[in-house]
């Protein structure tokens, strides 16, 4: 049953985020089309200094190959730097707790995870990482991967909008993402979080004697607020603490909880509106927004309607409703932060979390969410658009064989990198190394692990238990392939589309509500067709087995 609490929370969060995102999208349009701004007086010199230091010509338009190459090199460079920081943190400053370096496989997993905007964590941050690692490896990659995602999203949108007749310049998009979007927003968010009770300190972890005689506790106070701000804004999701936003110092109250939920929705939502603004027809943005939010809303509704098991695994101050909202939102926006333990949820909630990650576009992560939505639009238009009796076209551009090929390749990446390692994991018996059996629960958790990795989500069941060479390396590969291969394909499509002839006439009205309905249907069907048997073997089977064990009363498939 939907309760008043459910509706209240959703209304407050959605309403605020949607309104603010609309304004942000207008700001982003200015940022990425180079419109003059009052901030230019301060930021232009800063940006020019960065260009000068790095030797960048930010005015040169790049083709998709160059855009991708520069993007990949930069992300690789950043990952390598972070890798060394993590491995050698014991010899580096800002390590008052004297933590030793990570093992190579864990460091590899961690940098691949954070540089791919996944933030799967096979470690507990407060017990493993020095301040420097938290700041210069983790938080650093959270900024850069979000900037990369934002740049890609903007480049793809710019290509489809076609006004610039190019996808742009990666360095320009990346630097401006940082200087004009992520750093200023993170600055504001950090201050708000600090006032809400999230620590921001660099003075070590004191052990204090607590109230009851003889009891002590370690107070993990570190640069948490600055990290949480970008982790949420950048749909990164990797927390300062192993328990992520279930940990009270990362998420002290209901208010901070809702604020953090809103933060992760903010930029992805505004990019959907930005699409309409760049195309020059807000209805096109509305289509992406409505489709994404419809899927997100359906997931939420299913999660709310199923009985949420409150208690074990959930934080009391946050409660079942906000925990469910967070879990659905964190997977819908492929953020991956958690404010509760996944094992505390009904399998139906897990099923909706799977949908969020398998779809990746409802509304998905910063930048790439919009990118995946456009991929679905292309596949959908081609799949059903022929029925209009015309060669399918989007925004006046005819969809060609090469576009279909690339969009299908981007779509295919996901099932391959999820299913192949899942099968391999069970074939080599890897489930037993993380304490799981070859049953529905074991399957759900391993399948979830790779789905989360592939979707660059990062939420998981395994946590620090996943720190085995197999899972570190396997999920590491999956995260990078899942991140960069679809980006490559979609940049190629966008670049091709950017210069293509456009018809002013539009046969298939993609700005219409009926198209939204068809798009939502199509996204669900494509996802179900690809993953139905595996969802059946995982959460559905868990649910059916649970029902047999007498939870009962819930009808599957609402």
């Amino acid at each position, binding site marked *: 049953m939907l309760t008043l609490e459910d509706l209240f929370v959703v209304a407050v969060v959605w309403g605020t985020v949607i309104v603010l995102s609309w304004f942000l999208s207008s700001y982003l349009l200015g940022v990425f089309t180079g419109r003059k701004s009052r901030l230019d007086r301060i930021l232009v010199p800063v940006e020019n200094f*960065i260009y000068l230091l790095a030797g960048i010509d930010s005015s040169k338009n790049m083709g998709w190959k160059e855009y991708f190459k520069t993007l990949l090199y930069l992300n690789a460079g950043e990952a390598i730097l972070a890798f060394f920081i993590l491995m050698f943190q014991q010899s580096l400053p800002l390590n008052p707790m004297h933590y030793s370096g990570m093992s190579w496989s864990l460091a590899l997993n961690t940098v691949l995870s954070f540089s791919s905007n996944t933030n799967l964590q096979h470690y507990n941050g407060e017990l493993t990482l020095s301040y420097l690692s938290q700041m210069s490896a983790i938080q650093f990659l959270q900024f850069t991967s979000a900037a990369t995602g934002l740049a890609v999203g903007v480049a793809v949108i710019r290509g489809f909008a076609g006004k610039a007749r190019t996808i742009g310049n990666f360095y320009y998009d990346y630097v401006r993402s940082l200087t004009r979007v992520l750093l200023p927003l993170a600055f504001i968010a950090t201050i708000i979080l600090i006032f809400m009770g999230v620590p*921001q300190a660099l003075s070590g972890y004191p052990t204090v004697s607590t*109230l009851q005689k003889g009891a002590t506790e370690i107070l993990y106070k570190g640069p948490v607020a600055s*990290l949480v701000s970008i982790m949420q804004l950048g749909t990164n999701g990797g927390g300062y603490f192993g328990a992520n936003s279930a940990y009270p110092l990362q998420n002290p109250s209901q208010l901070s909880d809702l604020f953090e939920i809103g933060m992760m929705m903010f930029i992805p939502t505004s990019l959907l509106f930005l699409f309409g603004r760049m195309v020059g027809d807000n209805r096109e943005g509305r289509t992406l927004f409505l489709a994404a939010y419809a899927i997100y809303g359906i997931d939420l509704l299913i999660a709310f309607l199923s009985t949420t098991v409150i208690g074990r695994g959930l934080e009391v101050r946050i409660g079942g409703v906000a925990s469910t909202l967070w879990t659905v939102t964190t997977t819908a926006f492929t953020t991956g932060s958690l404010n509760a333990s996944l094992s505390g949820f009904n399998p139906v909630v897990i099923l909706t979390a799977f949908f969020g990650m398998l779809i990746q576009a409802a509304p998905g992560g910063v930048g790439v969410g919009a990118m995946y939505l456009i991929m679905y639009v292309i596949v959908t238009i081609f799949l059903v658009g022929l029925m209009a009796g015309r060669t399918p076209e989007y925004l006046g551009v005819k969809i060609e064989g090469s576009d279909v090929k690339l969009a299908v390749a981007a779509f295919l990446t996901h099932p391959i990198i999820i299913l192949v390692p899942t099968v391999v994991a069970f074939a080599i018996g890897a489930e037993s190394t993380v304490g799981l059996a070859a049953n529905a629960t074991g399957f759900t958790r391993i399948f979830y692990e790779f789905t989360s990795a592939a979707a660059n989500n990062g939420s998981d069941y395994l946590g620090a238990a996943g720190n085995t060479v197999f899972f570190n390396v396997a999920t590491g590969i999956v995260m990078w392939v899942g991140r960069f291969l679809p980006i490559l394909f979609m940049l190629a499509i966008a670049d091709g589309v950017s210069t293509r002839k456009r018809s002013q006439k539009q046969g298939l009205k993609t700005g219409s509500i009926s198209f939204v309905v068809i798009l939502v249907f199509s996204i669900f069907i494509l996802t179900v067709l690809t993953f139905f048997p595996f969802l059946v073997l995982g959460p559905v089977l868990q649910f059916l087995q649970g029902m047999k064990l007498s939870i009962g009363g819930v009808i599957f498939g609402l």
Partner: protein
Amino acid sequence: MKGFRNLSTAARLTLISVVICGLLFPIIMTGIGQVAAPWQSNGSQVYYDGKSIGSDLISQDFSAPVFFHPRNDSASGVDPDITLTYALSQVPRIHNATGIPESFLNATLEKYTQYTMFFFGTKYVNVLNVNLYLMESFPSIYAPYVQ
């Protein structure tokens, strides 16, 4: 040569990014936090007799029967709160151990009740705050149990 140029640009931009995002930003934010909101920035610590007795936000090990007990299963493991229902279920035990009237205990819980949704939703209490209140109200009863 062009490939090398790309690599060199990537390396330089990596260093610029890490300085800005991985050092300057968190250090500046720490400075601002320590100045503007030092209590929160340092973990919302509760002081008793001028001495920190831990964070308001982190559950403590209350095992003596005179205290309200926290949960021991929890996502974070340090959940500072318990539901009002769970707190009420502990009232008879504390009454038996301390002799504090149940009505007082119930009133205390009511005083400290919070809602998961600001003014509605599930009711809960912060264990440390309740115990601290009891201790301050009945110092002689609690003296043997505290630091």
